[in-house]
């Protein structure tokens, strides 16, 4: 699998944005719907938005320089013990570097231009729960540090090795624990090994006609164990729920032993739910090995949709009403104007004159006839799932609400493209990096009444901080309301800027990101909705959950892992 993926960027090797010989943007590979298509307006958008130019290019190192990698320090006794267990392992530099990072901007930047100060000393690939038990026992015996590694898609610096860690760091790669152990059709549950990657899980379940419905944007690469360890959230949570709603049972190996429950029941009243110590523990307590998860029959019918609103305020009001009536479709997202224009720039070349004529007509209708300001309007994308009949009924209900808030239906195609973009958008950062543009996304959750203020203030704060820090061109600072709840919403921000003329772009970037997070907290937003805390957001934990709260978590850690075997230093 490592072979298929980029070593210094997001996703598959064969899929990326390039500028072809004619200077037009193109997405390569055949994995995505956008693959092989030409994006005629994209170049102009990049130039206009970031002031970037194709002439100014930075290039990444072509490959990893093995000599730069810190040497692997592993004691011979441990190696002997490990060999005795017959668990496959590697001390190869590439293997170790591959597992030394997640996908934060600074991590990718280091890969392109520098080297981590600390990487794992050895990688192990257990294939089952028992293997993990053995590894943890060995680690306790030899006093090593274990960092569990799933899909490697973390964006919270959670996978970074603590520089000051003197013990041998073992990267425990769960990718070989990827079997579906059983499916229980009567209770609609499946027991799955935690290393399975999202898309494989869905593929295997689909063979029996089931799905989990858990679709985080990273589902092609992220693992079940990772979801549990970070309290993940999926795009279609309105139907299927977030990870905490999906999980029925968890088995975790800790230095104290194995933690699990005695039954697999929908709910129990046995004191605080121990699952909640595990979910969001971010690899600080142990290795999640097996998870029993709810499954559903694959929906009969899926339909995309989209609605255009005259402005963001109306759009948010509509989403709020949808949430209030509890009729949110599987997914409903509202992108602001900047992101709408961004999506527009990623429109592929149209095949026929007819389509282009139709597009023109639509545009005319919306901007001229309906009087929407193209620099104000925003779009909600929708995804319905279920029985055909119910979907159509549901669809009507949602569109009726939208109409009340001045929304206009804008077609299935726009909706579908919107969702496709969330998968390819991660590839864009790598293109940006080639042209002095760095960017990142971050998220929060916020009560409904503060959504608008938070979005406005955070975007403004980013713009201001960029200006103050000497960024020469106004940054891209955009957001979308990406999940709705009864009491609030999840908001996702994208932020990118052209760093030409700045000597230390990563530092500047980090300062701005920190300021943005401060702003979120000041506006009543949370530290994280689903990305987790890792090491990136640790500094605000105390403020987020109070001293006592932090102490509660600490005491659990102290009991479960007194010698800090799971020493990735996340969270606390």
């Amino acid at each position, binding site marked *: 699998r490592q072979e298929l993926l980029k070593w210094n960027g997001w996703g598959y090797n064969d899929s990326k944005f390039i500028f072809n010989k004619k200077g037009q943007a193109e997405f390569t590979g055949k994995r995505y719907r956008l693959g092989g298509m030409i994006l005629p307006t994209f170049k102009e958008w990049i130039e206009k938005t970031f002031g970037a130019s194709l002439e100014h290019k930075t290039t990444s190192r072509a490959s990893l320089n093995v000599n730069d990698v810190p040497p692997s320090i592993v004691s011979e006794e441990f190696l002997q013990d490990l060999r005795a267990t017959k668990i496959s392992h590697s001390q190869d530099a590439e293997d170790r570097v591959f597992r030394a990072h997640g996908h934060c901007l600074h991590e990718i930047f280091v890969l392109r231009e520098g080297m981590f100060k600390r990487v794992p000393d050895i990688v192990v690939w257990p294939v089952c729960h028992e293997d993990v038990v053995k590894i943890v026992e060995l680690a306790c015996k030899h006093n090593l540090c274990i960092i569990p590694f799933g899909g490697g898609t973390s964006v919270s610096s959670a996978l970074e090795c603590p520089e000051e860690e003197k013990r041998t760091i073992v990267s425990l790669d769960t990718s070989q624990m990827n079997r579906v152990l059983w499916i229980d059709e009567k209770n609609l549950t499946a027991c799955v090994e935690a290393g399975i990657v999202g898309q494989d899980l869905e593929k295997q379940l689909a063979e029996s006609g089931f799905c989990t419905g858990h679709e985080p944007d990273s589902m092609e690469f992220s693992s079940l164990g990772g979801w549990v360890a970070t309290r993940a959230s999926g795009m279609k949570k309105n139907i299927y729920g977030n990870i905490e709603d999906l999980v029925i049972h968890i088995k975790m190996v800790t230095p104290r032993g194995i933690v699990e429950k005695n039954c697999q029941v929908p709910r129990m009243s046995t004191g605080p739910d121990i699952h909640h110590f595990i979910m969001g523990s971010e690899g600080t307590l142990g290795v999640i090995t097996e998870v029993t998860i709810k499954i559903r029959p694959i929906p009969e019918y899926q339909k995309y949709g989209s609605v255009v609103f005259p402005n963001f305020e109306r759009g948010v009001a509509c989403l709020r009403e949808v949430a209030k009536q509890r009729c949110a479709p599987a997914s409903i997202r509202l992108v602001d104007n900047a992101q709408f224009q961004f999506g527009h720039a990623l429109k592929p070349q149209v095949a026929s004159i007819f389509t282009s004529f139709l597009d023109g007509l639509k545009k005319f209708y919306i901007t001229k006839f309906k009087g929407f300001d193209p620099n104000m309007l925003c779009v909600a994308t929708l995804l319905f799932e279920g029985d055909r009949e119910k979907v159509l009924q549901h669809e009507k209900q949602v569109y009726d609400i939208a109409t009340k808030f001045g929304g206009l239906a804008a077609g299935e195609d726009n909706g579908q493209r919107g969702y496709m973009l969330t998968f390819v958008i991660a590839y864009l950062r790598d293109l940006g990096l080639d042209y002095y543009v760095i960017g990142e996304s971050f998220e929060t959750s916020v009560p409904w009444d*503060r959504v608008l*203020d938070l979005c406005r203030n955070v975007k403004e*704060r980013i713009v201001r901080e960029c*200006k103050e820090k*000497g960024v*020469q061109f106004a940054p891209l600072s955009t957001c979308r309301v990406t999940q709705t709840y009864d009491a609030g919403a999840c908001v996702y921000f994208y932020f990118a800027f052209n760093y030409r003329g700045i000597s230390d772009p990563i530092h500047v970037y980090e300062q701005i990101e920190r300021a943005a997070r401060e702003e979120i907290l*000041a*506006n009543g937003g949370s530290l994280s909705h689903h990305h987790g805390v890792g090491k990136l957001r640790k500094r605000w934990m105390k403020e987020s959950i109070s001293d006592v709260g932090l102490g509660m978590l600490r005491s659990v850690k102290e009991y479960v892992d007194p010698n800090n075997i799971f020493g990735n230093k996340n969270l606390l």
Partner: protein
Amino acid sequence: MAPPIARSPRPPPRAGRPGRVGVGPWEAAAGLRPLRRGRAGERGAGRRGGARRTMAAAAAAAAGRARRGAPMYSQKDLTSKKRDEFEDILEERRLSSDLRYAMKCYTPVIYKGLSPCKPNAIKSAVLQSEQVQYVIKQLAKEMGESPDIIQEEAVEILDEMGHSMQLGAVRFFAFTLSKIFKRLFRRVCVNEEGMQRLQHAIQEHPVVLLPSHRSYVDFLMLSYLLYTYDLALPVIAAGIDFLGMKIVGELLRRAGAFFMRRSFGGNRLYWAVFAEYVKTMIRSGYAPIEFFLEGTRSRTAKTLTPKFGLLSIVMEPFFKREVFDTYLVPISISYEKILEESLYAYELLGVPKPKESTSGLLKARRILSDNFGTIHIYVGQPVSLRTLASGRINRCPYNLVPRHLPQKPSEDIQEFVTDVAYKMELLQIENMVLRPWVLVAAVLLQNLPAMESELLIEKTLWLKGLTQTFGGFIEWPDNLCAKKAVLSGLALHSNIACLVDGHVVLHDKGVEDGAIGEVVFKRALAVLTCATYRNQLLNVFVRPSLVAMALQMTRSFRKEEVYSCFSFLRGVFSDEFIFFPGISLKDFEEGCFLLTKCDAIQTSQQEIYPTDKGSVIISFLSAMFRPFLEGYQLIFRYLSKETKEAFTEKQFIPGVRNFVFHLLEKGNTQCYEALSSDMQKNALAALVHLGAVKKKKTCQDTCTETCGCTTLSGSWCRGWMQALAENTGRPAAGAQTRTCPSSLKQGRQRHVLHQASSPLPLRNCCC
């Protein structure tokens, strides 16, 4: 109608930011528009104003810019403080048609996020707001009345309060005020760069204008100014008294005034409606909001201690992050001669102020024939509330309660509001323009009853240098020689002083004949009027002067002792002058620094020595503040000797006035300024702060009780009063001969001792 044409050839000043190379697309987004004013053709002549600038070379100190806490304390630039140049806006008015000016095409720059709405839309938004509706429901529940009735009440309150800005009324004012201002004032000078900064600020974030308040002209002038520069007209918080004026009240309402009752502490509905009204305008960026931190016109031309209520209201939308930021703009309006000056003097002496009325206004039109010289308006740098607040506000209280619920501000918020209020007043003071006459008055008051004019001129010039060293912003007209400047001041202020046989004397006609009481009264009038000019210097001089006084009083050179005396004096005068709260040591250091700078003292690690040359400065400085010292002594003597255990505030002012009046009649004191009700109130407030006097609310009236037992407070008062008297080197008139503490410090120790040994329950005394 000629459309206004871009006037300023200067590119808008933009602060260069470190690291920025070239001009990116940032600029395009800012939506710049050149500042414009009136018509372009007439501007040539206006330029010469530039040369008129007097630079306070070393504004060193810009007295009192020291701040508490990290972001509030700006390391000041002690070498050079650049101030903007002034332009006369009346000049243009004298050259072109007022009617055309009033009818000009007025398309002001407005807040970028503003969706324009009518004044009535604001009112209904306020009424419908969750905040007001919540309070209405609460009250309905508590009082068992139907919410509709309370809603009705709210509507009435809103109608009484709300402005209804109309362009017609604005144009009417533009026309009449042009006429009036041209007659009253020689020049109205404005720093155009300040207007430019304001223009940017208005577009970027909601703006709060915080002018100083010396005259009713203030807010008329400010609106006039914004109209002239094509900026959004402010809505102005005005006292409800104006509504008593027929027609005029309504006219003001249409020109953007909204009216607040003088006191509404207990009325929750009123408070909710008022606060929401103001906050709605802030949130929507409807218009700049203007109000006076001082709360009322300062009768003494000395900045009054700030009021916090309205300020905390306008800051709240930012605390709750309903707006990204709010700009606070300090504005200093300085008059060469204040329109109401004689009225003020009467008021200070206890003659009640005439009620605002239209007929009164018409009667007052005779002042139109007088000349009131020049007005200087300095629009300060807009201060970003976000910058001030960064790192200081705990966000939790605002995140855990729905934002529409009324919430008592937490202690750190209250402290922050207080700090901001003082900071803004200090910024006002920093940019107050001082005219030569101010210096003349300060010198003259130290040399009553008469002073040789040559000497006066010489001293004035000397004082000019000193003032500039202390960071005072002196505007010396057209590089006039000192003599001419003094003479022209005398001409303008002929009601205060005049030249008799080469001597300058205070103008107190009719003093010779008439009863002794009348003589005292007339004299007091003259002194108090004159003092309003000297007072303009005081806040610039107060830090070095208190150091000078402390030096004289302690008769010690030990820094520690001088400081302890300084900080005691600072505490006593904390309501008289503007000190940023809690930074006594910084103020002391600043005072010492300024004295060192003018070579009056030398300091070492442990000690402070006056230099040989410095004694002149030191005695001048302490003489400048002696009226306050003596005045406070008289007031404390009154309190300790004449009063019963408890008295009401209403009894206090006439009581102390009579007491001082008698002393003056007998010739036992020369301190006419102690008659000033302003000083009397401040002294009482200081005693409350210091804990010598306790305030109690009774059902009818606010009652002030002297601390616990009179003997305690009395002996304490006497103790340090005598300490003061002794150490100033001048015996206070009528001071008792008794064993008095030899130093202030001892005096205070005595006080503590008294407390400890007193058999009375001292718990309830807040000493």
